[in-house]
């Protein structure tokens, strides 16, 4: 799909590292859709970006500078890992927003669904590196805390968006 290489990058095999929307809906709405297929777990290729990657932990596989990385299953923006920050810390001189949206992503290493908060880092303008959009556990805007089309810098001193981090906030569901 040529879309992937242009407007926004997106994992070509992102199904591998994420859980399905139905599963997520189920968790939130106490409503489990029968037959939601378990996604096939594929290995994530890190070789291409090895130099730029942060040191991976065992149990947290993948390249945090790649849109493929499992935690980015519902990210929509620039990856702070490519902007001078890390997967869970803001770049120098930016301020992390204290309000945020959350997604649920499956870690392919342990099969566990984690609650990930996508905090926006703010106060400098668009980093414009590693644009990544993945909507796996996104909801329409009437469920704002699960929506990634909002500039969440509203929780910072200036609502000017620089990039997004992906912070593990807990376990949604054991694998």
């Amino acid at each position: 799909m040529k879309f992937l290489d242009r407007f926004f990058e997106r994992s070509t095999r992102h199904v591998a590292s994420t859980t399905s929307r139905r599963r997520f809906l189920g968790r939130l709405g106490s409503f489990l859709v029968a037959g939601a297929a378990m996604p096939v777990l594929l290995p994530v290729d890190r070789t291409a970006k090895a130099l730029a990657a942060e040191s991976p932990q065992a149990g947290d596989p993948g390249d945090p500078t790649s849109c493929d990385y499992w935690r980015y299953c519902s990210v929509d923006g620039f990856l702070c890992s490519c902007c001078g920050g890390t997967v869970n810390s803001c770049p120098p001189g930016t301020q992390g927003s204290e309000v945020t949206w959350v997604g649920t992503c499956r870690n392919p290493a342990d099969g566990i669904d984690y609650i990930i908060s996508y905090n926006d880092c703010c106060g400098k303008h668009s980093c414009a590196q590693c644009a990544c959009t993945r909507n796996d556990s996104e909801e329409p805007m009437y469920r704002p805390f699960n929506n990634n089309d909002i500039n969440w810098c509203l929780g910072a001193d200036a609502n000017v968006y620089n990039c997004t981090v992906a912070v593990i906030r807990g376990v949604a569901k054991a694998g």
Partner: protein
Amino acid sequence: MRLPRPLCKGLLLAAACVAAAGTQAQLPVEKLGQNTTLPFPPDPHRSYIVDFEFNNMVATRVVVVDPDQRKVLGMLSTGGAAPAVLSHDQKTVYTADIFFERYVRGKRTDVITAWDTSSLSPRWEVEIPSKRASTLTERYGLSTSADDRFVYIYNFTPSTSITVVDSKKQEVVNELAIPGCILNYPAGERRFASLCGDGKLQVITLDDNGQEVNRTATRFFDPDEEKLIERAVGNGDTYYFVTTEGHVRGVDLSGKKPKVLPDWWLTTKQERQEGWAPGGWQLMAVAPELNRLYVLMHPDHAPHKWEDPSQTIWVYDLKTRKKVDTMETPSLVWSLNATSDDKPLLLGTNIEGGLDIFDLTKGEYVDTMDGVSKTPTLVINH
């Protein structure tokens, strides 16, 4: 002797002048042209592309184009990825701008800027509370009453509310809390709806001073059963919403209480089984004179694709609710709008910043204006 060109024209000595040009006729000295204006009323196909400038998002723009001539007519410079809406009298573009004193820091100032559609200059501005929702630009974040008296601005802090600006007084006259609800789908002169997380449609009616006189909440959909995309399309006071699976829910807001219309599907059961479903940003458009609905459709539906662009547009008759046509384009189109004249165009912003043009009389893709914008989230028309 060198004949200056205006003289050539005046004397109608065409042959002599061409000869002169071929030898030594000089081009005349010129003056710098200023104060260019666009004609009023605007051509019904004139299009305004809301450009998010995602790689910048501080200084952003609306690009004004003539899709028939494939010509850029000008632009508006906006602040902080401002939403834009056109007044019904065609005279004004409203943008809801956010400015920071040091562009990315310092004092924040939110304003409504009223731009003249002919001069493309600001006619007036009014400062509004610093609460304007900052989202990937979508319709109904900013709208106007049918008589253009009131401008409604959607706020998200993350509490939600609507700022009401009186365009006659040029001042803020109200802020209405809409807890649990989002956006403002305008209806008639004094009414707007908001879509709520509990599946209801809330309708607020104002008086001529912008004060609330009525508020209702009507069950509309079940948010635990389906994802109803908030990026609806309006046709007069009727709005069409669609779910991520292709289930259409319409509502008529012309009366005191919303009238929920019979629901229907974009797809047959077989088409759904084949994997067809809608997807895109502003994924639906209506051509009112044709009474047709245009929807970006995907052949390989998956839940996470609901905001993806597409090269395929399905066409529906809104009376029969049947699919009547398909259009294809070489670009990946993300947002649609149709013009409201009787020889309408469908405009589609593609993901490379171009504008795809479809002739709806012929029912086909015509051309693409490449590179007219950077991150075109929406296209709007008079």
